């Protein structure tokens, strides 16, 4: 076996794989943010809270209703997505004509309120949520022990990202969406219900956050602050990828997961900051982000 900078290659492969798995969460979350920003021009700071709500819906449906993980994967995005639709209709809609900052302030405030309400009710220690029976155990890959559940997270995340990209870039619905962002008045003139389209897009983006929440529930602590910790990193991912770029957010999500994984091997103390260092470097060289178009 060979070594790289004193680290055995086997250990390195393991770390890279884990980085990819963490990248899956970054990818799904930043994808949702990118879709919302790209089509609505809203910087959705509630995303972390909505991710947390996804995990909580999974926990609640198991605890109060006896509904297991697999149905929660479907149920949580619908419930939380519907909540997102309500938010868009009642509050966010009013800010489309104003500066980005207002949307940011509104969604940030909403995130604090939602997190506060959950904290009051459930405390911060977290709630137990187990790995579904079908995915317990793991595979010995020779260089590492890969839990089945983590394997499933990568697969699920890739499917979701590809599906979203496919819908937005190649279908008629996606074409309407993209056209509606470019020139809403014109698209409306063609008889397309643009406000409805935008509402549903927001609901979809929020649903993605909730899905990531359900995926995270069995492996991370389910607590009201779980999204607040993650959302800042995810925002950095979106900025590095280029605000609003769907492909950019997915690739950067996985890529930064890898970089973070490597940092955890060579200099673990810096693993919480490495993404922000990269963000600064990218912004210096390409202010619009790696995949962004300059306005």
């Amino acid at each position, binding site marked *: 076996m060979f070594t790289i900078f004193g680290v055995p290659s086997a250990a390195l492969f393991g770390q890279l794989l*884990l980085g990819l*798995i963490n990248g899956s969460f970054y990818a799904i979350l930043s994808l949702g943010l990118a879709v919302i920003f790209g089509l609505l021009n809203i910087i959705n700071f509630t995303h972390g809270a909505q991710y947390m709500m996804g995990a909580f819906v999974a926990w609640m449906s198991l605890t109060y209703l006896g509904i297991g993980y697999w149905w929660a994967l479907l149920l949580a995005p619908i419930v939380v997505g519907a909540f997102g639709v309500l938010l868009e209709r009642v509050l966010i809609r009013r800010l489309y004509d104003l500066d980005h900052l207002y949307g940011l302030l509104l969604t940030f405030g909403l995130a604090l309120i939602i997190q506060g309400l959950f904290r009051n009710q459930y405390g911060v220690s977290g*709630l137990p949520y187990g790995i579904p029976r079908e995915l317990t155990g793991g595979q010995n890959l020779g260089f*590492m*022990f890969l*839990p089945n559940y983590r394997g499933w997270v990568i697969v699920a995340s890739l499917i979701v990202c590809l599906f979203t990209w496919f819908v937005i870039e190649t279908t008629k619905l996606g074409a309407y969406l993209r056209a509606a962002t470019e020139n809403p008045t014109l698209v409306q003139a063609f008889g397309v219900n643009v406000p409805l389209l935008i509402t549903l897009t927001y609901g979809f983006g929020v649903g993605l956050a909730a899905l990531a929440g359900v995926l995270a529930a069995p492996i991370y602590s389910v607590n009201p602050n779980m999204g607040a910790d993650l959302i800042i990193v995810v925002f950095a991912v979106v900025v590095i990828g280029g605000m609003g770029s769907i492909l950019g957010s997915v690739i950067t999500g996985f890529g930064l997961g890898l970089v973070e994984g490597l940092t955890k091997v060579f200099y673990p*103390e810096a693993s919480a*900051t490495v993404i922000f260092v990269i963000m600064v470097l990218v912004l210096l060289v390409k202010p619009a982000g790696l995949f962004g178009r300059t306005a």
Partner: protein
Amino acid sequence: MKRWGYGVAAVLALAAGAAQAQVAVKLGVLNDPSGVYSDIGGRGSVVAAEMAVEDFKAASKGIKAEVVSADHQNKPDIGAAIARRWYDQDGVDVILDVPTSSVALAVNQVTREKNKIFLNSGAATSDLTGAQCSPNTIHWVYDTVQLANVTGGAMVRQGGDSWFFLTADYAFGHALERDTTAVIQKNGGKVIGSVKTPFPSNDFSSFILQAQASKANVIGLANAGGDTVNSIKQASEFGVTQGGQKLAGLLMFINDVKALGLKTAQGLVFSETFYWDDNDDTRAWSKRFLERAGRMPNMTNAGVYSSVLHYLKAVEAEKSKDAGKVLARMKATPTDDPLFGKGSIRPDGRKMHDALLLEVKKPEDSKGEWDLAKVLARVPGDQAFRPLSESPCPLVNKS
């Protein structure tokens, strides 16, 4: 009219007399009411302080006690600023709780400078009674040396002689790793590696993989709160125990056990100095606490209650809130309360009492929502805490 005037004057004179006999003290609970450590101290510690004031019947003993609270956000600079403001402007006499070791060390400095009283329940670092000890600070509940001695010692005696640490990268994690390493080496074990994890972290899988690769037979978790929950949850996912390695949760609160669920946490051993289901007294008090706070108390909450009781006793005896007199009285008087039993306070500021070695119950053995652990052993204070002879505290060396 004249008669009425005399009446008023008489009432005023009486009121003034009563006010002179009364000592007014202000107790400040300084902790994290909404962040990662809010279930460890948080509102529960405020409730505990209020319960102590009520149970002591302070008002009938000539003490007017008021409890105030603030949020230090787990940041040393914010904690120190609040402590300064409380002491200088708001008339706070005692600061209570203060989890998060880095903040506790900052408040320790400020309290000494202002010559007030700091009764710490929430923080772990043994430096509070070690190199940075202060005549104004009493470390009430637990510390890293005791956690290392009780949990670490038990693990080494069970054959866990090679260790790998996952250490939260700040004052507390470093102190816990240092003190546990000393215990391991004293008992003939060795530490073969450690990794400093950013605080707080969500994902520990990478660090767990490094710990697995080390082939150490114990993985020591020198972290707390959400970090502990996440690392245990993920260690179970990565088959750490099936691989023949043991986990040592060096600082766990019953809230963490509840968050993990008994299925994941069963069999883990950990150390506390208070467990609600320990005896009739602790059960009775904890039931009352549960009704007011909505959850069972942990050792931090219990410590706030116990320390306030002892403080009020000293104020009553001295009929004064002068920090020097009250501290001297507190240290000279043996402690005795329903939660920690009999104990004492040492010159280095260490409050001495028994420590418990607990084991998380199997799901089938648990009889209720909060029936989480059983007591494996009771370790006397002089064996659990650092002996005075080994103390690096200058207050001890001089005397």
